[in-house]
């Protein structure tokens, strides 16, 4: 049995990717199982989905703590989510990134693979630069890097189950298949900083008192606002309209982005009267 864990952000199609993989495996004659982890389902928020593929019916109904393969649809997650937690010693980490596979950090002994699925998706008009739909390109790369499904089965699954632009998605899968780059053994993973300890529930009712500012939502964004202060008039429109309260003021009264919280919605750039705010693609 192969166990695969997908990490993506709401809206990127991680859940659909896990389902498509299962459909493709079924077309290959395998017994698949796929399911999402139902948590905070928000556009841009981290999401997890799982696929199991076996020759016999799967006899487990649990999440996947020790995956053979970890698929990361969004490179922004690498800095904030412990994507490789529990990955098996000879497992595979596949990441959508423009970087080379050598540059990826993974636990010792884990194979690494990279595919620039964002570029592929946009070249086929899938999604927007803000929210590219990368799942089919990533699945193509997964098919090549792992051999868990054939490209033919994947293409047929896409034709049958992708609601929009099936042709473009099939081409994206093909491009992912042909351009994925792998490297055999990973470097040691530098441990991610561990957040503040979470208090266990008290003996009383469910009472939450920890400010949500302990949660950083930077990983949600695809584009990052940059303020060109030389043209800023301190009108404060950016601050006024920010749904994330992610804009503060410096001592001179100029606006400053609170990057830990900015989700990159782009309202500040759109509403800035002198157009001093530019949305730049976030680099992983």
């Amino acid at each position: 049995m192969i166990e695969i864990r997908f990490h993506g952000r709401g809206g990127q199609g991680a859940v659909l990717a896990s389902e498509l993989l299962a459909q493709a495996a079924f077309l290959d004659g395998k017994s698949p199982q796929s399911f999402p982890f139902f948590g905070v389902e928000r556009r841009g928020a981290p999401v997890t989905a799982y696929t199991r593929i076996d020759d016999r019916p799967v006899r487990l109904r649990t999440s996947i703590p020790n995956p053979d393969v970890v698929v990361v649809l969004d490179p922004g997650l690498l800095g904030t989510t412990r994507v490789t937690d529990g990955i098996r010693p000879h497992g595979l980490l596949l990441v959508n990134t423009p970087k080379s596979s050598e540059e990826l950090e993974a636990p010792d002994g884990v194979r690494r693979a990279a595919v620039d699925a964002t570029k592929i998706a946009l070249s086929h008009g899938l999604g927007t630069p803000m929210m590219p739909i990368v799942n089919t390109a990533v699945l193509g790369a997964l098919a090549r890097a792992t051999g868990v499904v054939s490209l033919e089965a994947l293409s047929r699954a896409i034709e049958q189950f992708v609601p929009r632009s099936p042709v473009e998605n099939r081409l994206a899968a093909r491009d992912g298949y042909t351009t994925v780059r792998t490297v055999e053994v990973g470097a040691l993973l530098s441990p991610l900083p561990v957040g503040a300890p979470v208090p266990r529930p008290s003996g009383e009712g469910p009472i939450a008192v920890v400010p949500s500012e302990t949660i950083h939502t930077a990983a949600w964004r695809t584009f990052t606002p940059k303020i060109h202060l030389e043209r800023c008039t301190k009108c404060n429109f950016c601050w006024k309209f920010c749904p994330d309260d992610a804009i503060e003021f410096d001592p001179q009264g100029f606006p400053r982005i609170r990057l830990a919280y900015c989700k990159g919605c782009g309202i500040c750039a759109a509403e800035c009267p002198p157009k001093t705010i530019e949305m730049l693609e976030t680099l992983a």
Partner: protein
Amino acid sequence: MAKLTIPSQELMYSGHAACPGCGGALAMRLLLKGLGPRTIVSLPACCWTVIGTPYPTTALRVGILDNPFEATGASISGLRAAADVLGMKDVNIVGFAGDGGTADIGLQALSGMLERRTNAIYVMYDNEAYMNTGIQRSGETPWGAWTTTTPVSGDLHGKPEPKKDMMGIVLAHRPAYAATLNPAYPEDFDRKVERARDIVGPRFLHIFAPCPPGWKFDSSETIALGRLATDTGVFPLYEVVDGRLAITRKTGALKPVEEYLHAQGRFHHFTPEDVAKIQAQVRESWDRLVQREREDLSRPH
């Protein structure tokens, strides 16, 4: 520090779990600015249940009480009763419910609260569908809009029924104060919140809350779309104090509704006839609003 046109205090924490560009998140931020820290928010099942972040975290610098979907009106009656009997002074009791939790499943409890003259503020943040469950139609979904339960294909043309007139239903209860608010107009928004805060009795705020994933528009356009909603007359801004209606934003000629409709994927299937139908309805509602305002003005105090 430069000029601030709305209060500087922030009572909504960052790190919350709203989608990028969420009108409902901005609505909460602006609402609490006007109300201040001595506020308790009763929160039914809605997007904000999740936006408020999971245990042990919370996204508001004020008290939140979670309540079931349909019970917000009753909950704020209970909070007010307790505050009064325990001698808690100067506490804003606020129900903050979505359109489904207000106009559909919560309508009975809202009506009860208004009829009982509960001294509290009931907020309906209106994103015009059940967004937290993934875009299903509600009583507040407008005519023709696509949702997952009002599909568009063949003869199916989005929602076949018109939007429920919640302000009309609320005004029939003669609240102490009722107003429509739009985060695209923060100064008007804040003035109404502060006015509502200082009035005693049942108060109702209908807040327009654009939803980028549900309405299918780019998250950067939330404010622009909000402005269009008001400037086309789709979501006019007004308030009713002691039964007297006053329009709080007039822009001379209304913009064509086409601009508003075409900015959203949920209306992409609209034909010119559909647009004309909406235009006629918006025009008629606006004229009725202007007429009502004129009548109320001429009525002696």
